[in-house]
């Protein structure tokens, strides 16, 4: 029988509440860490695999006018023989209003078309129930568009083709397309048809896109190389087949359109995990230090009867390993379960169907190492210190600091004031062991900092959404098929009931290019992500708020040749554009020179540029026309907005003005919210474990403090302290620690909030998040800590108050 093993077992049993608390504390933080690690590994792997499975195009070359299908087939075949081209195929797409079984939908359908004999070797999508192509008269719908559009397989959907036909197509099946962002986030449905289907409807049999996979034998990941190769192909297309290249689109190679959001999300997760791990490290050190300190008298006795330091060290090493092992064992399964519950949400955000939710093999040893080695590492210093305690030090140990500290001395002077003596004693007690006080306060400060910073970053994100919403100073956007004179259509629109005000705008896709170069953009295959939109601001508008300027100035009224670029455009442009530079902007195939007079910061916006309506007219050598109507409605109720949109659509169509779409701005708000919400959820989810860890840390610290001072509390009883007085003092100590940590968390919270906002904002929207400090979070945390301190110390205080003098003085 090994008596040290017996002692260990009984010590663990005797101190089971503290041991349990310690195991739970480590297990909670390790669970959070492992869940994030598992999710990280699964999301990274599955996202890459899913996106790569589509064999995404390295570049898309758009033509205007479009090219006949047969000619495109020949061009693609020829392109495949060119150096650096691995694969090439022709495609086209259009966006249309949609009716389902004759019922109009508020949303639009983005229709992708490919040749019936396209073998889908690149820019792939995956028909589910049927194979490619759908027969003429049928359409496949994106799987994630079904619920958005409220459509089912077998339903008839009516779309408006570019040629003006409105065929009813039967939904024959669904498609999984992981190269696109999820339809619900974009508030746009996706459909897939064969070009033969369109031809059967009398549509011209044409393609306006040549998709290219570029590289040597495998697709390149070097964007510069891709741009060079795509430009070379574009120039060849203009030179030899004589096609008119409108734009070369080169998105970030192998990067999902939501990579920025996904990165921000995973960064938020990693920050949370790192914080949880860091805090658990401090917590482990704190708790073990308390446990070992409590054992010092026994260590002294063991040494007095012949135990060596190594023997005692081994005992506590095994104790630490048992605690760490139990916590690690407890954390493994919940970590996996949480990851399996959480990862599908991330995949939903990315529009990915995962093949497997099994975490990478290396995550298990990583979690085991973190769970077993980290507590051991943290315990090493207190462990060695405790096992080296001399008999003399153990005899002198009374569970309090040996010499009065400077801080205690300062507090002693407070005794001259008329402060409640019990409270004064509690205040002094909190800093009697400076190291433990620092650890406890450090732990709570860290947890509070992360909680407030996480919630503040959430407020920053919400501010972005609110700001985006505030910029929408109109209720309905009507997209026209072509430019019209606003003077001609305004009276028509103004007659529609519910319309309060109407303005004519021009918002059009454009591309930036160097002199003599083909226009180049970072536009993704959905023609949305990465697209540069130029907005022509009408004179005297009341529906526009000038965005915050980073540099330079805003456009002067009627100014020509001047442009303001936002930060996303500056980040995405392939040349180093600065204030005062002249840029080549290609709009509708017309290139013109513009001087950058200002740069704007628009968080939550996509790539954008602003010119005056007069400036655009001057550049395109046309009168001031509009392709977009912005309407302020009498009521901002969503139903009223949508009713106005429908009525305006009907009014204009009836008057022979072709309307591409008419929708409430609520749709745009929903899209912005859809992009931000997952990150908001993550930030909240990473803040909450901090609260749990903080409360456990406080409970453990106060438990240790009371246990160490059992003799002293006995003496207090002996000299007449009533139980409730002892209890009040002990509880007050906990509250003092909690309040001190809240005060100390103020400055770090301000700094971490700024750092987290910069990290998330720059990753997600090329600008730091607006700086917001969540007062609510600070109040919630303070209340949580004070209440937590009260509850955490109450049990210890009750035990302390019930000790008899005899028990206390005999305590070992």
């Amino acid at each position, binding site marked *: *029988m*090994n*008596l*040290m093993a*017996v*002692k260990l077992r*009984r*010590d663990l*049993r*005797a101190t089971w509440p503290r041991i349990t608390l310690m195991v739970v504390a480590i297990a909670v933080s390790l669970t959070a860490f492992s869940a994030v690690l598992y999710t990280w590994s699964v999301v990274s792997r599955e996202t890459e695999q899913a996106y790569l499975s589509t064999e995404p195009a390295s570049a898309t070359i758009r033509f205007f006018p479009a090219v006949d299908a047969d000619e495109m087939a020949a061009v693609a075949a020829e392109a495949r023989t060119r150096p650096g081209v691995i694969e090439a195929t022709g495609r086209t797409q259009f966006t249309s209003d949609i009716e389902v079984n004759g019922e109009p939908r508020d949303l639009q359908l983005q229709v992708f078309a490919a040749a019936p004999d396209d073998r889908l070797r690149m820019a792939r999508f995956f028909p589910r129930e049927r194979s490619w192509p759908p027969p003429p008269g049928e359409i496949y719908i994106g799987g994630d568009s079904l619920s958005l559009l409220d459509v089912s397989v077998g339903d008839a959907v009516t779309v408006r083709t570019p040629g003006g036909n409105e065929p009813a197509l039967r939904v024959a099946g669904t498609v999984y397309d992981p190269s696109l962002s999820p339809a619900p986030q974009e508030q746009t449905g996706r459909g897939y048809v064969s070009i033969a289907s369109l031809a059967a409807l009398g549509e011209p049999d044409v393609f306006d896109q040549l998709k290219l996979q570029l590289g040597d034998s495998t697709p390149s990941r070097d964007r510069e190389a891709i741009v060079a190769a795509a430009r070379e192909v574009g120039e060849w297309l203009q030179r030899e087949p004589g096609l008119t290249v409108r734009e070369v689109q080169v998105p970030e190679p192998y990067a999902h359109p939501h990579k920025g959001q996904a990165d921000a999300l995973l960064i938020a997760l990693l920050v949370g995990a790192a914080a949880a791990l860091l805090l658990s490290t401090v917590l482990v050190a704190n708790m073990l230090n308390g446990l070992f300190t409590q054992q010092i*008298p*026994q260590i002294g*006795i*063991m*040494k*007095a*009867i*012949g*135990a*060596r*330091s*190594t*023997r005692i060290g081994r005992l506590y090493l095994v104790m630490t390993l048992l605690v760490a092992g139990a916590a690690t064992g407890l954390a493994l399964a919940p970590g996996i379960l949480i990851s399996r519950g959480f990862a599908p949400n991330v995949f939903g955000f990315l529009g990915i169907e995962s093949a497997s939710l099994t975490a990478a093999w290396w995550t298990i040893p990583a979690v085991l190492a973190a769970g077993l080695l980290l507590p051991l590492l943290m315990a090493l210093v207190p462990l060695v210190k405790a096992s*080296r305690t*001399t*008999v*003399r030090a153990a*005899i002198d140990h009374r569970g309090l600091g040996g010499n009065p500290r400077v801080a205690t001395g300062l507090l002693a002077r407070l005794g001259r004031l008329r402060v409640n003596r019990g409270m004064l004693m509690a205040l002094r007690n909190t800093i009697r062991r400076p190291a433990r006080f620092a650890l406890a306060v450090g732990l709570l400060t860290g947890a509070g900092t992360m909680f407030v910073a996480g919630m503040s970053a959430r407020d920053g994100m919400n501010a972005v959404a609110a700001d985006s919403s505030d910029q929408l100073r109109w209720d309905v956007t009507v997209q026209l098929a072509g430019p019209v004179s606003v003077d001609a259509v305004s009276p028509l629109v103004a007659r529609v009931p519910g319309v309060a005000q109407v303005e004519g705008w021009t918002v059009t896709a454009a591309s930036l290019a160097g002199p003599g170069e083909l226009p180049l953009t970072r536009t993704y295959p959905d023609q949305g992500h990465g697209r540069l939109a130029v907005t022509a601001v009408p004179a005297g508008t009341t529906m526009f708020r000038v965005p915050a300027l980073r540099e330079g100035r805003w456009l002067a009224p009627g100014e020509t040749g001047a442009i303001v670029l936002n930060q996303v455009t500056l980040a995405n442009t392939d040349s180093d554009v600065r204030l005062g530079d002249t840029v080549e902007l290609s709009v509708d195939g017309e290139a013109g020179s513009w001087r950058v007079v200002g740069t704007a910061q628009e968080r939550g916006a996509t790539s954008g540029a602003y010119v005056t309506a007069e400036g655009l007219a001057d550049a395109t050598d046309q009168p001031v026309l509009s392709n977009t109507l912005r309407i302020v409605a009498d009521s901002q109720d969503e139903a009223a907005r949508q009713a106005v949109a429908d009525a305006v659509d009907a009014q204009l169509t009836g008057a022979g003005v072709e309307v591409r779409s008419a929708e409430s701005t609520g749709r745009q708000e929903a899209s912005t919210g859809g992009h931000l919400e997952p990150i908001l959820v993550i930030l909240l989810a990473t803040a909450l474990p901090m609260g749990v860890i903080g409360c456990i840390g406080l409970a453990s610290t106060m438990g240790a403090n009371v246990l160490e001072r059992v003799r002293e509390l006995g003496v207090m009883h002996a000299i007449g302290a009533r139980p409730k007085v002892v209890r009040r003092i002990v509880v007050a100590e906990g509250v003092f620690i909690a309040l001190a940590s809240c005060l100390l968390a103020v400055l770090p919270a301000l700094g971490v909030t700024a750092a987290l906002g910069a990290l998330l904002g720059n990753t997600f929207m090329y600008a730091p998040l607006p700086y917001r400090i969540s007062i609510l979070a600070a109040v919630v945390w303070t209340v949580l800590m004070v209440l937590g301190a009260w509850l955490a110390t109450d049990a210890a205080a009750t035990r302390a108050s019930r000790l008899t003098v005899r028990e206390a*003085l*005999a305590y*070992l």
Partner: protein
Amino acid sequence: MEHSIVVSDVVKMYPLGAGKVTAVDHLSIDIEQGEFVAIVGRSGSGKTTLLNLLAGIDRPSSGTVRAAGADLGSLSESGLAAWRGRNVGLVFQFFQLLPTLTVAENVMLPMDFARKVPVRERHGRARRLLERVGIADQADKLPATLSGGQQQRAAIARALANDPPILLADEPTGNLDSSTAEAVLKLFADLNADGRTIVVVTHERDIRSMVGREVTLVDGRVVQDGRTEVPA
């Protein structure tokens, strides 16, 4: 007769505030093997410090302490622990039994540390020692369930675990009622009769009738060192 303990010109000073206090002041004392010595004196006279020096718990500021054949000043902390385990039995005023081990296990623990007694004999030896101190029936109980006198007897049994030649006791009866204290002192006398060297720090005047020598300390110095007559 051979000296069991030799204390030569020992000074022990402790830091106190900005200065130092001298607890033991140029003290020399020899204790022969088999002696039963009582160290007496008022509070603060240096009794406990002297005992701690003899046990290797404290190290002298100057001077030397030799006990059971070892120069304690030359031993490391670890060496002192091993030396204590084999040569010294310590008895404290507040018993200091490990609370999570039974009485018998507390007695066996020093045997585990010193490895002087073969493993298979440890349990039996613990039982015999507990029988000797009169609490064999309490062997499997936890210390908290025992009375003060029983706990002190258990502590004495633990001190005897490795059959040490020297027993050092610091106020062993200070926390006991008079009748129990008398029984404990009688136990010490019996152990001394076996030839063991025993040094007891005490306030008890009654012990004079049992010890062979009484050393009185004042301000860390020996002011009286007299042999007493032990009744037959």
